[in-house]
């Protein structure tokens, strides 16, 4: 009964006129930006973060959540119509979705993506509502040592899921942590690595780093690639999938939802892993005699990953809301947003701020519903957007990034930071180092240090404390196992295969 009461409270918050409006604006803006090729959810949220400053915290978070779903859905639209996935989690959608579009069935693919996402969203929202309270209660028992070990596990998991070289991913995480340490030390008040620059004593702004790497860095990469786009604008076709499509996709949606919800909870995973693995699962299940074959426009290849990535997107809120630990880069941005609004994410949010907590959960469902209602009729408009040439697009993105980052602190210094991180992001992409782990390390770094120090203080400098506490020990053993598994050649190959899905 608690669940229903809580959800009622949540819907009470989410369904106020004001919050519905913000969810709507969020979804719209998110889709609007997300649909632009080459801009993923991280860049979208980073760019739109400043628009939420003026709002009350609940509305701001609801709007940001809306932006997130919108951006994700927008990414799928681009993937299907242009074969240019705006974000890594819709890469697999592009495989079959684009083929469907070429056969003139873009409408059915888009429709199925929306419907699958909605079903997955509904289910996983319920899941979040059911599991978040007990989990956050459990989280209250966590000591500093446990937290530290949990973050280690999270970071290692992020390595597993990063593309490319394991070594480089680890190096990126460590670099992220080090960058996160710039600024005044909380315990002693000593300015670290500030090189006598007053602006650096406050630390490097998280938003600035994210925008630099994911905003400007991406622009640089896109500018280099030049333009090669083929948009299916004229023949989107009817939006409603046929009965046959539904029959084929029902199982795929169900499996995608289940798998996605599960994988979303894992640290480091979220939507990306969910969509990749559910696609592989469908492909395996369908076997060689699928009709049409996977990769040639099978609707199950659209329905499954789309459901999975949406389910994963929802459930990745669980670690954030219960433990205060962001499982991926998007959630790391959410932490940034919450901090700006003076909310310390963690297990106490649910008790100290129930309106916010349940309101956010209820708004997840509202946001999903809105995506379906909004986007199906508006697809024509999004398609028009796809026609804007990139040479007009990128100066606009630049302006938004610059003004956005300036408004965070009213500091010109942050603008120089994004310029610097834009170049750094470009170099990293060139060297095949993924930036997402860096961002995660950047956010988790200071938290890790604090918990490490607290744990060491409590244990009077005895490092064995990490092995004596059962929770902490479990996490560390899991991390060690993950690392060992990574080192095994067989698994390594398999992992590479998963990410180079043809």
């Amino acid at each position, binding site marked *: 009964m608690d669940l229903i009461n809580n959800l009622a409270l949540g819907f009470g918050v989410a369904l106020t006129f004001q919050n519905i409006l913000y969810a709507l604006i969020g979804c719209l803006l998110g889709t609007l930006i997300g649909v632009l090729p080459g801009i993923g959810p991280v860049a979208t949220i980073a760019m739109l973060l400043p628009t939420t400053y003026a709002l009350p915290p609940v509305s701001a978070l609801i709007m940001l959540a809306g932006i997130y779903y919108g951006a994700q859905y927008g990414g799928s639209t681009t993937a299907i119509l242009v074969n240019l996935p705006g974000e890594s989690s819709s890469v697999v959608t592009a495989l079959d979705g684009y083929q469907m579009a070429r056969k003139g069935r873009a409408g059915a693919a888009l429709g199925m993506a929306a419907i699958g996402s909605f079903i997955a969203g509904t289910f996983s929202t319920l899941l979040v509502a059911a599991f978040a309270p007990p989990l956050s209660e459990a989280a209250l028992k966590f000591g500093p040592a446990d937290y530290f070990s949990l973050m280690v596990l999270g970071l290692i998991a992020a390595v597993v899921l990063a593309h490319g070289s394991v070594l480089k991913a680890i190096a990126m995480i460590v670099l992220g942590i080090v960058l996160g340490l710039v600024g005044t030390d909380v315990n002693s008040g000593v300015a670290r690595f500030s090189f006598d620059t007053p602006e650096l004593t406050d630390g490097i702004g998280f938003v600035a780093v994210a925008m630099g790497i994911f905003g400007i860095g991406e622009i640089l990469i896109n500018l280099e690639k030049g333009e090669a786009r083929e948009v299916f604008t004229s023949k989107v076709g009817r939006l409603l999938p046929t009965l046959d499509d539904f029959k084929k996709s029902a199982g795929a949606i169900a499996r995608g939802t289940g798998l996605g919800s599960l994988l979303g909870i894992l640290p480091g995973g979220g939507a990306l892993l969910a969509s990749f693995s559910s696609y592989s699962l469908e492909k395996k299940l369908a076997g060689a005699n699928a009709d049409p074959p996977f990769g040639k426009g099978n609707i199950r290849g659209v329905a499954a990953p789309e459901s999975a990535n949406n389910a994963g997107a929802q459930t990745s809120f669980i670690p954030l809301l219960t433990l205060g630990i962001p499982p991926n880069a998007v959630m790391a941005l959410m932490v940034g947003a919450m901090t700006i609004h003076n909310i310390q994410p963690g297990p106490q949010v649910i008790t100290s701020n129930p309106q916010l907590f349940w309101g956010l959960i209820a708004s997840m469902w509202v946001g999903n519903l809105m995506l379906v209602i909004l986007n199906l009729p508006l697809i024509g408009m999004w398609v028009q957007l796809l026609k804007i040439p990139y*040479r007009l697009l990128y100066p606009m993105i630049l302006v938004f990034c610059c003004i956005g980052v300036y408004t965070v602190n009213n500091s010109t210094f942050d603008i120089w930071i994004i310029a610097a991180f834009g170049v750094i992001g470009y170099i990293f992409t060139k060297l095949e180092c993924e930036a997402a782990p860096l961002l995660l390390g950047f956010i988790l770094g200071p938290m890790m240090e604090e918990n490490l120090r607290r744990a060491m203080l409590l244990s009077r400098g005895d490092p064995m404390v990490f092995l004596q506490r059962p929770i902490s020990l479990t996490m560390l053993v899991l991390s060690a196992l993950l690392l060992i598994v990574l080192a095994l050649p067989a698994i390594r190959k398999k992992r590479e295969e998963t990410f180079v899905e043809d």
Partner: protein
Amino acid sequence: MFLVIGIVFFVGAYNYSIGTAARMGPGYFPRILGGLLAALGVIVAGVGLKNQAAWAKTEGIGWTWKPVVILTVAVVLFGLALQPLGMITSIILLTVISGIAAHDKNYRELALITVIMCLFCSAVFVWGLKLQMKLFPWS
């Protein structure tokens, strides 16, 4: 290629370790990480050296510095201009300079987009969200 990043990491870590060696308190955590990073840098560089022959064959990856330089200059100028010269001036600087980086330049479109951005940003950020920013050099 890998060597470059290895050195970057290594030098970075070296810097950090020195800065904190004197104070064990605040420097403890960074020191461990600095060491870790340096070690990783060496390994990455080592792997890179081993594979260098293979990389040379594929000619590595093309680096196009022109847009990088142009965009960086544009953004830095924006930062310099924003407070003394106001938002409108800065946006014009930013869009026009960054526009040079495009493959297919079209100056009329660029001018149009500049005007649109000026109007839009004034409307949304200054009048809509009431952010503290001046529009013109003289305001």
